[in-house]
């Protein structure tokens, strides 16, 4: 099936006797966007820094495309493009010169490839300007261009939507979808914003206090979402009587019944049989936000 391109094996980081990241293990597959979700200070950035060799690993290992980042850094990191926190650029150089700096560090990057990537991120018109004249969105795009130059198999983006407006986030999402679905790249994004992760990712791993709490696919999260249904009915007391064997709550004049999706038709039938008028039914999906809070507040 899918190939695990990044394997995180029992990764731990201890700084000054404090365990920042503890025993993380998970795999990331080709062609997926993996979201790394957690509140601020949960250890996301530390984990990412260990994955790209910016920080030493206290225990465990990160294996990228079969090479250990600890023992074979140069081979492992060849397959990685990353933006850690902000896209850091040389402001006194032009966009193009920034890309050239990066291109010189990899034998296989041609002039043609640079132009191609510049076009992909839509910076063709501004590429000769100095980076200090760029807007934040343009810097993000240049940062993305920079880490795509060497055709990495894995793209790691730490808080990629930080400071982007909704249009920018949408654009970023489209880029990521294109890269994973068309080029088979694996992308790891981290964020503390759930709504964004839901839009961008295929799978989400939730981390808190340096520990991995849960890994779920976004579809799964949405599927078994709804856990109660709100019924707007004419005769409330009668309805309550009829539904006495279910868990029913009155909220804002609506009956909230905790049932599974497949039970909805039988409830309707029951109400109709008892001549209770139904004006509306809606599913109360517990938002991802609530689930996230539920998970992290254990």
């Amino acid at each position, binding site marked *: 099936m899918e190939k695990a391109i990044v394997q995180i094996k029992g990764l731990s980081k201890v700084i000054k006797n404090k365990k920042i990241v503890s025993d993380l293990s998970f795999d990331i597959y080709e062609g997926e966007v993996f979201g790394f979700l957690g509140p601020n200070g949960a250890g996301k950035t530390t984990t990412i*820094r260990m994955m790209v*060799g*910016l920080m030493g690993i206290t225990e465990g290992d990160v294996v990228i495309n079969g090479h250990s980042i600890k023992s074979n850094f140069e081979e492992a990191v060849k397959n990685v493009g*990353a933006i850690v926190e902000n896209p*850091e*650029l040389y402001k*006194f150089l032009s966009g193009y010169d920034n890309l050239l*700096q990066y291109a*010189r*560090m990899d034998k296989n990057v041609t002039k043609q490839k640079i132009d191609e990537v510049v076009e992909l991120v839509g910076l063709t018109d501004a590429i000769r300007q100095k980076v200090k004249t760029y807007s934040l969105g343009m810097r993000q795009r240049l940062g993305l261009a920079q880490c795509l130059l060497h055709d990495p198999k894995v793209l790691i983006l730490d808080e990629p939507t930080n400071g982007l407006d909704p249009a920018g986030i949408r654009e970023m999402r489209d880029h990521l979808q294109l890269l994973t679905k068309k080029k088979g790249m694996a992308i790891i994004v981290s964020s503390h914003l759930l709504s964004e992760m839901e839009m961008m990712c295929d799978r989400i791993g939730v981390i808190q206090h340096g520990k991995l709490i849960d890994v779920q696919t976004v579809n799964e999260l949405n599927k078994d979402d709804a856990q109660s249904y709100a019924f707007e009915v004419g005769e409330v007391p009668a309805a309550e009587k009829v539904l006495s064997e279910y868990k029913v709550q009155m909220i804002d004049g609506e009956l909230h019944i905790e049932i599974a999706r497949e039970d909805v038709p039988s409830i309707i039938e029951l109400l109709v049989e008892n001549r209770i008028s139904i004006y509306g039914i809606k599913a109360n999906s517990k938002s991802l936000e609530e689930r996230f809070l539920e998970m992290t507040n254990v």
Partner: protein
Amino acid sequence: MLKLILNEWIKIIKRPGTLVMIGLIVLLVGAVGAFSKYQEGKHVQTADPKWKETMQQDINASKKQLKEIGKKDAPIKKFLKRDIAIKEYRIKHDIDPFEKNSVWTFVTTASNLIILVGLFTIIIAANIVASEFNWGTIKLLLIRPFSRTKIILSKYITSILFGILLLFTLLFVSILLGLMLFGTGEGNVSHLAYVHGHVEEQSRLLYSAKFYLMSFVETFMLATMAFMISTVFRNNTIAIGLSILLLTVGSVITNILTNFFDWGKYILFANTNLMQYIDGTPPVQGMTMTFSIFVLLGYLVVFLTLALLVFSKRDVTA
């Protein structure tokens, strides 16, 4: 590795501050040239017609001093001997010590600006690692397939290359301007050197080049130190401050220390001035060029090893 050095070089050259440094050196050489030319026009210089008599008196005085010192071993002895030898050579071969302004006197005057080369090289060396941390761009470098050793060495080599560029700019501009303003000079313009107990005539160009390169030793060592300090402490202010302080007063302090303590000869600054073995006297009796070169190499290894070890082990959180 060459590509990394090229990258570093581009980053230095494309910053406005760098052009200011080079411009300032050119400008100051110009100012020195203009001033010398002005002075030349104001006071018509004439040779002392009785220079041989004056010089003979000097020689006699020095010989007397030498006798007074007697058998005691003092560094000044060697200095006096050389002075006498050169002066006697002048009288014998009729080489007037008075020189009209020429390109070579100008190059010698302009060599006072070498301290500026030192200053700028220290600034570049202290910033080349620290500013990548400030900009956050260090992350870009460190997540590329190069070992940290290669990254830091490319930065160090680039700083030193930049120092050499500044030095050659200074030498080249002062030769050019000297030729334009004063010409090649007349008559015998060779340098009189005292080698192995006798006097030799040497090419002035060779001597100037040698003088410049020797002067660069101090700059080179201080730039290496600034590089090490800024890498280890991630603080370019301390690195620049300390190195410039030592650049200006280091040799004075060392001179005081070497007067009282024999171990003073192991201090960096007792050894940076290699010209002392050619034109002067070493601060401590028994020091030789070879000794100094070994001491300098020792410091170099310590500075670079420290920078390398700390840089390789560091967790980057910039």
